[in-house]
């Protein structure tokens, strides 16, 4: 029956392309035993890489969430010239190759760039934390905005207007009317943003300088272990950490999936 054929083909495609590689990461990491994998992932350098990744994420996610909500409100609730342009700019990070993002930062903050003089004054952006943070913020910017905009459109302004006529101040309106309506969209967007921050590789790789124990994020550490240190088990062990985070992300996405509002 064609139904079974379709099901078999479609699922086979997913299995071959997705499940087998991800499963293979676990297989390779634990191939020499759990203890070996644990040792590989608890070296000073690996722990630092994880900490750095989490620190970048811990700053970029709240920043992009707050700015994202503000931008979403601007895009949906206000009319101003250049609104279409703002929309395009917000979506831009999704269309850009991460390499191009890294390049742009490199050109701006490197020697000879517009802000290249900062390095001489002791403010190191490239090859240091600030540059990596800027790269992470850039690539993960659009997600909260894109999740919140359609919800804002859908819920309309009636409830907000009602609250205002009842005397509520703008921030109260936001806190008590708008935000509760968008919070699942925000949560979904936050999960996507977090996943993007943790997994970012290309842009951060260019601006980081790959200084061991100082500017290596966990994805950069994976590549470094594989390509430099001949430590394939180290690379796979770190990959498992990232894969586990990815799986947790997928679970959370399911939990926060925008549901039909049942009022």
């Amino acid at each position, binding site marked *: 029956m064609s139904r079974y054929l379709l099901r078999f083909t479609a699922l086979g495609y997913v299995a071959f392309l997705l499940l087998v590689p991800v499963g293979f990461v676990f297989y390779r990491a634990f191939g020499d035993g759990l203890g070996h994998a644990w040792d590989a992932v608890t070296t000073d350098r690996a722990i630092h890489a994880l900490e750095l990744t989490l620190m970048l994420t811990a700053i970029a996610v709240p920043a992009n969430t707050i700015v994202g909500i503000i931008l979403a409100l601007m895009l949906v609730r206000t009319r101003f010239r250049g609104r279409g342009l703002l929309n395009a700019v917000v979506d831009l990070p999704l269309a850009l190759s991460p390499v191009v993002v890294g390049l742009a930062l490199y050109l701006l903050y*490197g020697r000879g760039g517009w802000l290249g003089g900062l390095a001489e004054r002791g403010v*190191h952006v490239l090859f240091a*934390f600030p540059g990596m943070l800027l790269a992470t913020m850039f690539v993960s910017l659009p997600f909260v905005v894109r999740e919140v905009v359609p919800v804002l459109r859908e819920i309309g302004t009636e409830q907000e207007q009602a609250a205002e006529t009842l005397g509520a101040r703008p921030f109260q309106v936001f806190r008590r009317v708008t935000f509760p309506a968008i919070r699942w969209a925000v949560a979904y967007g936050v999960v996507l943003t977090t996943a993007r921050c943790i997994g970012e590789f290309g842009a951060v790789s260019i601006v980081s*300088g790959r200084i061991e124990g100082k500017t290596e994020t966990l994805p950069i550490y994976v590549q470094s272990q594989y390509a*430099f240190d001949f430590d394939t088990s180290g690379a796979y062990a770190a990959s498992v950490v990232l894969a586990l985070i990815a799986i947790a992300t997928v679970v959370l996405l399911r939990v926060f999936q925008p549901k039909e509002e049942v009022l």
Partner: protein
Amino acid sequence: MRVICIALLGVALLAGSAAGASRGGSVDLVAYSTPKDAYGKIIASFQKTSAGNGTGFNESYAASGDQARAVAAGLKADIVALALDPDVNMLVGKGLVPKNWAANSHKGIVSDSVVVFVVRDGNPKHIKGWGDLVKPGIQVITPNPFTSGGARWNVMAAYGAQRKAGKTDKQAIAYLKKFFQHVPVQPDSARAALQVFAQGKGDVLITYENEAIYAEKKGVHTEYKTPKSTLLIETPVALTKSGLKKPAAKAFYKFLWSSTAQKAFASQGFRPVVKSVAKSYKFYRPSGLFTINTTKLGLTGWTKVQTRFFHPTNGIVAKIEKSLGH
């Protein structure tokens, strides 16, 4: 709430950049891709000395050419340990390394090596000399000469070996073209090339002798052959202008030629340059060994060779690669 978050952001940025600024007693080492284990040992020994006690090190290892460019773009470095002189001289041109960086008794060279062939265990394809590399069906792994220093040593070894066998300059260049026809992939650094070879790609890897020894240490199923005619690899180290301002960096620089450090190099497969140490190690001496300054073979020193062979648009290698692409 917004204000708090923006403030946090600002603090984080400042903290991050402050953390990046140099603290007293920390040395920034920027090196090429292969000597990581060696420097690990040397740094540990240095930290046990009185001059090095309490000194922190920031280390970065990647392809030599890439590292030089990173330093030029602002990567902090007190000591640059690169694969060949031109990469250091590029930094002199940018005003980051003093002109007289090589003015010590070893001309700034901290260790030696030779170009060797790494083959599979048992050498199933019977690769012994440069002529075997261009036999039909043989796949050669060598890194990208525009990013890797090791790749440039490899190319000049190939050229020099042809000249040593009596070929003319033209014929040697024709050999180089055949050589590159047998290269299916050019990883960006010497270490990356070893990784690719270890995965099973290619029949022979051209690399540093110390890298071949490293491969054996790591249990890769390879052996290596030193061709009779091959190039002496001399890898330089330089103090940058910022390194000159740090007593710890200057002390570490001097330490690299101490017998402790030279012995550490030797234990990792690098050939020591200090004669008293080199005497106690039995490194194989190829009968047809030449250097980058062996003029009669057309090897007229790195400055001229770098321009003639490795200029990104007009160099011989660039032209060869272009001609092979179509």
